[in-house]
């Protein structure tokens, strides 16, 4: 059903062992490269630290490959342009950071309501307000979930490294098409500017999902078909003979505004359910050295890098500890977490660069008897493994 095309970006290495040529690349550049690999051909944005390199890179690339780039007057406008381009058939994205992400919420809600696929890379910096523009934080976990007014089907992915920035950007585009919804990539300042080894040519982890064209003639076409919950629905775009209406108002299956009760329920339930009911397909997490872990660290993004380092060092000291790393913040990988923690663990330690946004969720999914301990750092610096080790030793 899916019109997927396998993109081979790397030649098959024949004899295995020979090391691939590598290059040093930052997370921001990997997001931009991931977007292009996923087929992104429209970017609209507004400069903001620490995300601007994504935009600058795409300003260079887009005109070279027939893509469209535009710098807008603000982040609200950037999201508007992205939605417009997506409705015209583009795989489209924008990139921003906290304050800009707040401005985008109006149109993220619109894209969710009107079911327009698009990708927003939010490179988190320290907030609230202007905060520390050049320093890191993880303060937007909750904004990615509840930033919009109303209930939206939030999908947010949290990369931990430049290479994962690439793969998760590709996945963000795939998910956006699959669920016809905005998808957020929650990177952060550390990831953005950290350079790490990545292969010269990156092999895609998944097939690229293309937008499904409608299979019915225009007169039969419904932009919001009745069969709710289906993933991967066909979607017509502007200018191809399907003259449909799109609105941010609560709408019926044609897309026309409606205030009939059953249609209101349909419209809103479908939005939330398409992600909620498919959470098991979307949610992803990494379990790192979880064997017989007595203490489970939960950390995401760059904080998880420090946590991994801490786990390594602690395991060397024969301390039974493991890391659970949510790769999707939303939907939260609750099942995976519950299985990973199991009955043996003594405590869960949530390490994050905010005052406990993820800890609230972890607490919610853990049995009442399980202690959920916070370890927060909000000074703009990446949390040091030593700090985590100290906390673990205290708990162990």
């Amino acid at each position: 059903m899916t019109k997927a095309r396998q993109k081979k970006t790397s030649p098959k290495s024949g004899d295995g062992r020979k090391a691939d040529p590598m290059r040093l690349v930052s997370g921001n550049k990997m997001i931009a490269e991931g977007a292009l690999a996923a087929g992104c051909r429209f970017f609209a944005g507004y400069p903001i630290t620490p995300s601007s390199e994504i935009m600058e890179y795409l300003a260079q690339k887009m005109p070279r490959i027939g893509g469209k780039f535009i710098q807008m007057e603000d982040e609200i406008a950037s999201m508007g342009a992205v939605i417009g381009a997506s409705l015209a058939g583009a795989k489209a994205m924008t990139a921003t950071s906290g304050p800009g992400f707040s401005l985008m919420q109006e149109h993220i809600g619109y894209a969710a309501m009107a079911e327009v696929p698009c990708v927003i890379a939010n490179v988190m910096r320290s907030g609230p307000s202007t905060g520390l523009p050049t320093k890191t934080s993880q303060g937007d976990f909750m904004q990615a979930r509840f930033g919009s007014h109303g209930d939206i089907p939030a999908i947010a992915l949290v990369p931990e490294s430049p290479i994962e920035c690439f793969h998760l950007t590709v996945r963000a585009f795939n998910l956006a098409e699959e669920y016809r919804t905005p998808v957020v990539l929650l990177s952060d300042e550390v990831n953005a500017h950290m350079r790490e080894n990545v292969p010269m040519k990156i092999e895609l982890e998944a097939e690229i999902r293309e937008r499904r064209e409608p299979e019915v003639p225009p007169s039969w076409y419904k932009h919001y078909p009745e069969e709710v919950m289906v993933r991967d629905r066909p979607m017509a775009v502007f200018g191809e003979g399907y003259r449909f209406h799109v609105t941010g108002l609560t709408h019926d299956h044609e897309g026309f505004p409606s205030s009939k009760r059953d249609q209101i329920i349909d419209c809103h339930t479908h939005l939330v359910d398409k992600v909620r009911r498919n959470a098991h397909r979307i949610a992803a997490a990494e379990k790192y050295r979880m064997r017989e872990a007595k203490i489970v660290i939960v950390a995401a993004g760059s904080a998880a890098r420090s946590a991994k380092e801490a786990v390594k060092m602690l395991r060397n000291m024969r301390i039974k500890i493991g890391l659970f790393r949510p790769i999707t913040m939303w939907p939260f990988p609750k099942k995976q977490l519950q299985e990973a923690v199991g009955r043996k663990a003594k405590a869960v330690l949530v390490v994050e660069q905010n005052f406990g946004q993820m800890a609230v969720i972890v607490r919610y999914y853990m049995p009442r008897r399980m202690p959920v301990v916070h370890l927060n750092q909000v000074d703009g610096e990446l949390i040091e493994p030593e700090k985590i080790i100290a906390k673990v030793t205290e708990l162990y």
Partner: protein
Amino acid sequence: MITETVIHKYLRPKKEFPHVWCAGCGIGIVLGSIIRAIDKLSIPKDDIVMVSGIGCTGRMPVYVDFNTLHTTHGRALTFATGIKHYKPRLKVIAVMGDGDGVAIGGNHFIHACRRNLNITTIIVNNFIYGMTGGQRSPTTPPGHVSTTSPFGSEAEPFDICDLAAAGGASFVARSTVYHSALLDRLVKKALTHDGFSVVEALSPCYTAYGRRNDFRNAVEMMADLRDRAVHIKKQDTSLPPLPDRKFYIGIYKDEDKPEFTAAYKRLMKRVREIDSPPGEEKEQ
């Protein structure tokens, strides 16, 4: 009537009527002008995207059989920009109200004027927020009463045409819904203009504005628009300020200026020539 059949050709067969507008509202006349202009130019329905913001004018696209997009308050032009930039072959029309277009959407408006994408923008100016019940807008005349200026508005209003021209729009014109033949011509001219075009259509809103400001009905408001309008003549080289709340109608500005999507196309060609071999993807 011929006009009736023309209009029916462009109305959406599936959409339930009646429409949301009050009796005596001028928005329908503006929609009529847009449809007549499109029909005269025989632009295929499939190639037209009508984008709107929020408000009474924002409800316009839902009734017409084009690609239609009802966006957020004030932001129609941002969506329109994305559509036009990605698919330049589409004819993009943005319809907005005065509060929608130049209050909450003011920043988007001036930047759209500056960029000069080939988008036809129609601003229905009725001097008030109609849909929300009659609050003052940035075009409410001083001294006029609204629900949020109960003692008369004390602020100076915007002149939308001045704003558009100063922002860099390459075609700027004004008419009223009383002068509907002129409005037809101006919309038609705007649709054929290569660049960002703005047509301001002054329109009566008796419900939310007229009845609070000493008009007895919508017809009186139409007569008022008729009486206050001063035609811009071909030979006019400058437009001196007018007394007694009079205003000009006609073409304010019509100039040739590089259009954005064409300039981007040239840019793509230029960068491709710089780095050979050329890129693999085809342009939209």
